[in-house]
């Protein structure tokens, strides 16, 4: 059983939902990321989504675009991100780590090199925003061979037939994008999300995480009541941006946000 599946099973037996924070690796500088990951775990994060910085983050709003720019300014490459995962694994063998990003850095590294390095680093899952299952046969095969879950997005625009296809291709969990838009955009409609999740659950037993538009304790709590996981990104990345000049404060300040969300979700 993968670390991700085990994580969701444990939470389920405790009647809790997963809190899944996203931060961009290397933002604002590479040395901040590792302490930040540990702080997130201590604050109650169950899974960490670590963003691979990319020059052209087409599905992201300004907050994560700027995070990518800051990380790239210090030359954070995919190999560096994998090194961060390996470092994290030295002291934490239980919290799943998922890389989230765009295909080109992986494409340029080569799928099989990436699969080997990711396995060696102790990575658990990968979510490639611009790689739909139709284009992912080879990628899926290699990730599966390395015991890495491939996590796919489902969107408000995804029809039933594609839900089936995507859920069949993915593993670990599926990520439901709650709004039409880029990351950090409009606020979400919980009733609409609940309705869509009901449909999705007809076709998969996998846990469903919901992201995009979760910005405070109230929205985290509301989503935790209908989803298996709550994914939160831009609000954390915003805090990192605010503290780019006081980097030693970043882990504590960001973890304070997730700790508060954790409390709201567990209430």
């Amino acid at each position, binding site marked *: 059983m993968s670390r991700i599946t085990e994580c969701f099973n444990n939470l389920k037996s405790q009647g809790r939902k997963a809190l899944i924070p996203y931060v961009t690796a290397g933002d604002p500088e590479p040395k901040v990321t590792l302490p930040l990951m540990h702080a997130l775990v201590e604050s109650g994060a169950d899974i960490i989504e670590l963003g691979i910085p990319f020059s052209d983050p087409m599905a992201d709003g300004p907050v994560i675009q700027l995070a990518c720019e800051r990380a790239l300014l210090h030359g954070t490459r995919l190999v560096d991100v994998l090194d961060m995962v390996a470092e994290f694994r030295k002291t934490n063998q239980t919290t799943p780590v998922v890389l989230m990003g765009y295909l080109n850095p992986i494409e340029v590294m080569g799928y099989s090199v990436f699969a080997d390095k990711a396995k060696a680093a102790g990575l658990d899952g990968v979510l490639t925003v*611009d790689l*739909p299952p139709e*284009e992912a046969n080879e990628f899926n095969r290699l990730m599966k061979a390395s015991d890495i879950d491939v996590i796919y997005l*489902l*969107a408000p625009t995804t*029809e039933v037939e594609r839900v089936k296809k995507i859920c069949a291709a993915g593993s670990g969990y599926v990520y439901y994008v709650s709004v*039409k838009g880029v990351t950090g955009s409009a606020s979400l409609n919980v009733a609409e999300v609940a309705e869509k999740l009901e449909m999705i659950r007809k076709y998969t037993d996998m846990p469903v995480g919901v992201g995009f538009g979760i910005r405070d304790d109230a929205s985290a709590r509301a989503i935790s009541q209908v989803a298996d996981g709550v994914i939160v990104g831009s609000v954390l990345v915003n805090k990192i941006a605010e503290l780019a000049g006081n980097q030693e404060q970043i882990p504590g300040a960001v973890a304070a946000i997730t700790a508060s969300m954790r409390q709201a979700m567990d209430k």
Partner: protein
Amino acid sequence: MLTKEDLAIAKQMPDAGGHFGQFGGRYVSETLMAALQQLEQTYEKLWRDPQFQAEFDYDLAHYVGRPSPLYHAERLSRELGGAQIYLKREDLNHTGAHKVNNTIGQALLAKFTGKPRVSAETGAGQHGVATATVAARLGLECTVYMGEEDIRRQALNVYRMKLLGAEVVSVTSGTRTLKDAMNEAMRDWVTNVDNTFYIIGTAAGPHPYPKLVRDFQSIIGREARQQCLAQTGKLPDVLLACVGGGSNAIGLFHPFIEDEGVRMIGVEAGGYGIETGQHAAPLSSHCKPGVLHGNRTSLMSDEGGQVIGTHSVSAGLDYPGVGPEHSYLQEIGRAEYTAINDDEALHAFRHLTLTEGIMPALESSHAVAEAMKIAPTMGKDQIILVNLSGRGDKDIHTVAEIDGINF
């Protein structure tokens, strides 16, 4: 050596998934998949529909002013002392470039799908102007994304778009050029997918865009082929077209794919020179395949997979990728790709203006420059057909600035 069968296969590309060999495809976030599938279905149905074809042809004839002439540049040819140079005069189209062939087609698709709003990215502004033009005609709301750097370079086109009723959004992220405008246009689309038709300006992006843009632009090659046969009694020896994303080039090339005796040469922007790294020539610098803007294609990215900033004097060629069909035609050896530097393009701009009284766009000047290079090496009975994809009025400001003249 490609067999007739190979060429027939090449002509039929892409496959059902939008692949041209290993290139092309559909690499987008899930939110856009439904819209792309719907677009594909709509397009496949309408493209075979005689009524749609009739409407498209009517607009090309009476609104765009087609067919565009094929002009024998006699003085230039005589002076170079080699091959006869013929110019396919896309610069004479309404709005001044080939771009309008595609926007007419996509606007018709938008009309049939009932979307009230169109969006577009633009580099030199020609596609933005062509989009704003058809939007004005059909009464559609129009938003055009343009890099801040290009807005500065192409102020005239920006004002033209505004006069046409379009909103021009300045893009300040990344390198502030065409690639970033395209990122922003994709973000707009993902947000407004229900009411917006995204009119991509080049034969790139996710399937079915590379195919449909090619099909709409293929009118260039079909006309040129007939005109050349009618005027000279034979096919051209060489086709030349500039390549940024490559829509004017694929429009010219595609109808000639099975004419094995016709060499097809795409001319990329060499910028300060391929050896400086400051260029926009992924094919001639033999870049590896990468994934950007929804398709796999030859892409200028670094060893970490980050897309590299490009340089070209012409905003319309200033793009790190290229339409996937060009990558394919290069890989199978059917088309060749080369690069022309900024200063060579500027020289060609001035030279064609002085010898023929035709002022080419800086983009098209790259193709003219290549013609000036190879014509002297060819026989006087040979023919070079150059796609003069746009007119140079929009570039007068840039050239004047280089000359130290401030209006």
